[in-house]
């Protein structure tokens, strides 16, 4: 039915159109709002929280949720809620920026590989295999010892290892899409390969990629936790959701809530991105227009 409506309404740009449709998608909007809220809270936490994120209270160690500490306290008597909100800064950054790196590297390589000659394609894929098997821990420990453990190192570390998944995914999708007839048609109409790849192939490949990205968000957040244990990324006492879970695990028999709250937080973040992502995909995809 798409055609009918299109023909009859003044034409917005693809994106303009998409934004409008996105705005109409309740879940996508909800997702966006949650992300916005988390971000806001993360930056305002110092304003309204009575505690510092590193403020120890040795008389209130491992206390369950209470009035004073809605989410309880950790094993140094620090307020979990405060740390959770403060930790959002790191975890949002990791969760999102790492994904950007992944996409920026992964999509072009994947797309190129798929549209390149089978020899080049094969070569790139073997390279990807190497990266897959790449001994990342060793590499990261090395980086740490040479460049020290800044948060950028962490983005680099995560991005460097994670892009291959997206690359392979995009390649698979493009290989598949590129056989689709609208592409053949476009080619017949003399469109350049580059144009086709950018205008047709990549957009139509996004569905699964968005899923992949949303799934990479928690993975990145946990990776950050693992990394900060090797001395990369944010240093204690600065909290991050991943490290909160890791540290919480050690005392799970005594204070399960230490794991619960950060896990829920990460869940909400990912869910928001899932909805936002799906919304965006639907919005960008003419065939799904209603």
């Amino acid at each position: 039915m798409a055609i009918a409506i299109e023909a009859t309404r003044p034409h917005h740009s693809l994106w303009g159109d998409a934004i409008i449709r996105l705005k109409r998608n309740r879940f996508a909007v909800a997702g966006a709002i949650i992300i916005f809220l988390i971000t806001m809270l993360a930056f305002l936490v110092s304003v309204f929280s009575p505690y510092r994120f590193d403020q120890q209270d040795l008389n209130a160690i491992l206390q369950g949720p209470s009035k004073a500490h809605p989410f309880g306290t950790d094993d140094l008597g620090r307020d979990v809620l405060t740390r959770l909100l403060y930790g959002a800064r790191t975890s949002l950054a990791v969760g999102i920026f790492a994904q950007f790196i992944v996409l920026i590297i992964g999509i072009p390589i994947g797309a190129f590989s798929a549209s390149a000659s089978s020899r080049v394609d094969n070569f790139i894929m073997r390279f990807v295999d190497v990266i897959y098997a790449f001994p990342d821990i060793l590499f990261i420990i090395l980086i740490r010892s040479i460049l020290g453990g800044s948060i950028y190192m962490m983005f680099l570390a995560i991005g460097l290892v994670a892009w291959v998944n997206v690359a392979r995914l995009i390649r698979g999708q493009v290989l598949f899409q590129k056989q689709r007839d609208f592409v053949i048609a476009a080619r017949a109409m003399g469109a350049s390969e580059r144009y086709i790849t950018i205008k047709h192939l990549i957009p139509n490949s996004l569905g699964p990629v968005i899923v992949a990205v949303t799934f990479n968000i928690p993975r990145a957040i946990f990776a950050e936790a693992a990394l900060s244990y090797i001395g990369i990324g944010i240093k204690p006492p600065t909290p991050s959701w991943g490290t909160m879970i890791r540290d919480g695990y050690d005392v799970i028999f005594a204070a399960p809530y230490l794991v619960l709250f950060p896990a829920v937080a990460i869940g909400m973040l990912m869910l928001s991105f899932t909805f936002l992502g799906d919304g965006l995909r639907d919005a960008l995809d003419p065939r799904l227009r209603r």
Partner: protein
Amino acid sequence: MKQRLFCILGLLLIVMPLGLMVACTKGESTTPAPQVQSTPSVPQVLRANLDGEPATIDPNRASWSRERTVIMQVFQGLLGFNQDLTLKPVVAREIPSVSNGGISADGKTYTFKLRPEVTWSDGKKVTANDFEYSIKRLLSPDLAAQYASFYFDIAGGKDYFGSAKKDDAARTQLRSTVAVKAVDASTLQITLAQPRPTFLQIMALWPAYPLREDIISKFGDKWTEPPNYIGNGPFMLTEWVHQDHLVLKANPNYWGTKPRLSEFQLKMITDANAELAAYKNNELDMSRVPPGTEKAVMADPVISKEILRFPELTTFAFQFNVTRPPFDNVKLRQALATAIDRVAFVDKVRNGVGKPALSWVPPGMPGYDPNLGKEYEFNVAKAKQLLTEAGYPDSSKLPELKFQYSDTAGNRLIAQFLQGQLKDNLGVNLTLEPMESKAFTQFVNQEKHTWAWFGWGADYPDPDNWLPELFGTKAGNNHTVYSNPKFDALAKQAKSELDNAKRLQMWAEAQKMVMADTPIATMFYRERFILVKPTVKGIKTTGMDGQVTGDLFLTEINLTK
């Protein structure tokens, strides 16, 4: 040696000697066990956990508590330890001494008389040759045994060990010069290069246990697999599923009092939470308690009754690199040492498990001095004053202080605690530098660190395992880069002093010197805090227990309804 932050109620410890203290937290430990006869129906199978696969169970090569736990059940040495960690003869008929002629007047030659009845699990007699073979193997360059250096006092030992580059002839020659000699089947004579009063304790350690040349030359590396793994101890290794579990069965041919247990199972659960779960699911009879959860355990109506806790010969401390400014400033070091509320850490953060440490040598060991280090007791005012004396009346004028640690959950907690203390008490900002463990170890071994966290566990219960090795100039484990000629001189004397009382006096002096210069800020003495099923009776603990609690006296353990 692995850093697990178990601790204990301080008071108990100071007032009571080890045995007593164990007795009062777990009365069964000293009671003889008539239960055996009364409940013969109970299968005598003890299920304990080894937190991972032993690297090797070859006594000569083993170096970790995990491995000792297995070895000590299957092998026995000339000497062993009592529960109070004094020496006792085992395969040897008596403890050599000057009076009984076991030790020559110059304190260099030791003569061990072996019990005639001691046999291997396959029935063969244990002879002095088995010991000679073992010790020479231990010192052979090809084996590259990690504990070999402990036996360098044996005349010729060090040279033989260092002969790796030499040709076979030269080696064989050096081997024959190693002064360990089986005079006859039941007499072993060892001569030292210089007197070493603690040599007997070293001889009580696992690397010096007897070995069967015939078996080792027959099976090579495979000799540590059952059934090749033949020893002279109360148990035999009957099954070893790698990375999974070990089974030891009572040795029917054991020459001494037979163990009450028929079987000793060792699982290999690495994750502390999983281990506790296995214990709660009755798959284990003993379990660690994940650090930090002690309070919850103590609050639990059921398992709180199954707690077993006792002090270990392990001290944890912050070691300054005294050559790195600003830590080359002794007043600053003292200010920092005084600004740490150890009691709060032990009582609050560690739920009262452990004992705040003001001096280096831990309680339960000769050389422990309860009155030492009082000046480092937590005192903010004093700390501030010391900081002023150090030349930093305004703490913000301090150069950046950096603290390195090997990043484990436990260490990360300590580091943040330290950071909080300095900030709250002195207004000093501390930068934490977590590192991956090996990277950290190398960092420290190369003395690149400024201020680092470390712990030291006893190899044998004597100050000479605690002081010269760590504070002697250029000593192997001296990572404070502390150097004090007076200390070195005294240590040199003490090492070879034959009069025990005098010797310990010297060490006490030496420790005082060290503590006065504050190369380290001691934190706490470790306490082991575990759970044991009420059915397990007769556990005897010591400050040097291996991976499995009571492994020095496993033969006395039995199970009841």
